[in-house]
């Protein structure tokens, strides 16, 4: 199956953000559904504009700690869980903004604050999503999976009936 422009924007954004600010070269891998024995940190971020939708980011715990330490320029050992969450939230924010700037270069978009999903909380998925892209990469000591789905702005009722 050929890659859609939306998926390409997600792939390029993940790569650019991870390389420039986290010093990581991501290696693409097939998205997996299985959970990690190490635990996973999940973040969800809604956005409004043309298009509107939601980004979900899942990072395995060891990888989250490692990239958080690298981003802040600190040692992993001294990093609190709260600081790791803050960094992963900002990672989600940057990936989302980067994708939206690529797909809609002339529209204005608004990002909500990223939200950490609690253990056991399942990410919101809109069945009526017009476009959905998933991109998974191996990073250092774990995996990062970014999935983005958008509502088609001409079909707001279909999206509303699900949310």
């Amino acid at each position, binding site marked *: 199956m050929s890659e859609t422009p939306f998926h390409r924007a997600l792939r390029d954004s993940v790569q650019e953000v991870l390389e420039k600010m986290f010093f990581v070269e991501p290696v693409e891998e097939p998205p997996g559904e299985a959970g990690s024995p190490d635990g996973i940190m999940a973040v969800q971020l809604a956005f409004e504009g043309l298009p509107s939708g939601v980004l979900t980011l899942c990072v395995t715990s060891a990888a989250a700690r490692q990239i958080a330490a690298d981003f*802040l320029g600190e040692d992993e050992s001294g990093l609190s869980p709260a600081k790791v969450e803050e960094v992963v939230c900002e990672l989600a924010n940057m990936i989302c903004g980067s994708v*939206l700037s690529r797909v809609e270069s002339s529209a204005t978009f608004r990002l909500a604050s990223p939200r950490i999903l609690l253990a056991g909380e399942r990410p919101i998925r809109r069945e009526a999503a017009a476009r959905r892209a998933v991109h998974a990469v191996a990073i250092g000591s774990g995996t990062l999976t970014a999935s983005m789905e958008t509502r088609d702005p001409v079909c707001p009722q279909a999206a509303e009936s699900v949310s």
Partner: protein
Amino acid sequence: MAYRVLIVDDSPAMRSFVRRVMELSGFDLSVCFEAGDGGEALKVLRSEWVDAILTDINMPGMDGEELLRRLSADELLRAIPAIVISTDATTNRMDRLATLGARGYITKPFVPEDLRAVLERTLGDPNV
């Protein structure tokens, strides 16, 4: 020269990152105020003077554009150089930032050295 700076971003992680880049670029930060949105930033500015403001755009509460609008409407505050650090690289946004008086901008993600270049062009080279 000792700098007093205000960093405005709803992400504490990004505020730390920007602060670190400023310090590693040679800006001697005597004071670094932090705010989570435009409203908090204005509260700081009611009682403190700063030499530079670095602000995000997308924030809950008052966003960066509204903050810039309020700053440029104030006789004293409009003199403070404001640099925008944002994920939004759309042409609409860039055009508006220029008319709102932003003196410099950089889009996330960026390499630290590029932020240093924007800081030096806007505020001058601190090492000279």
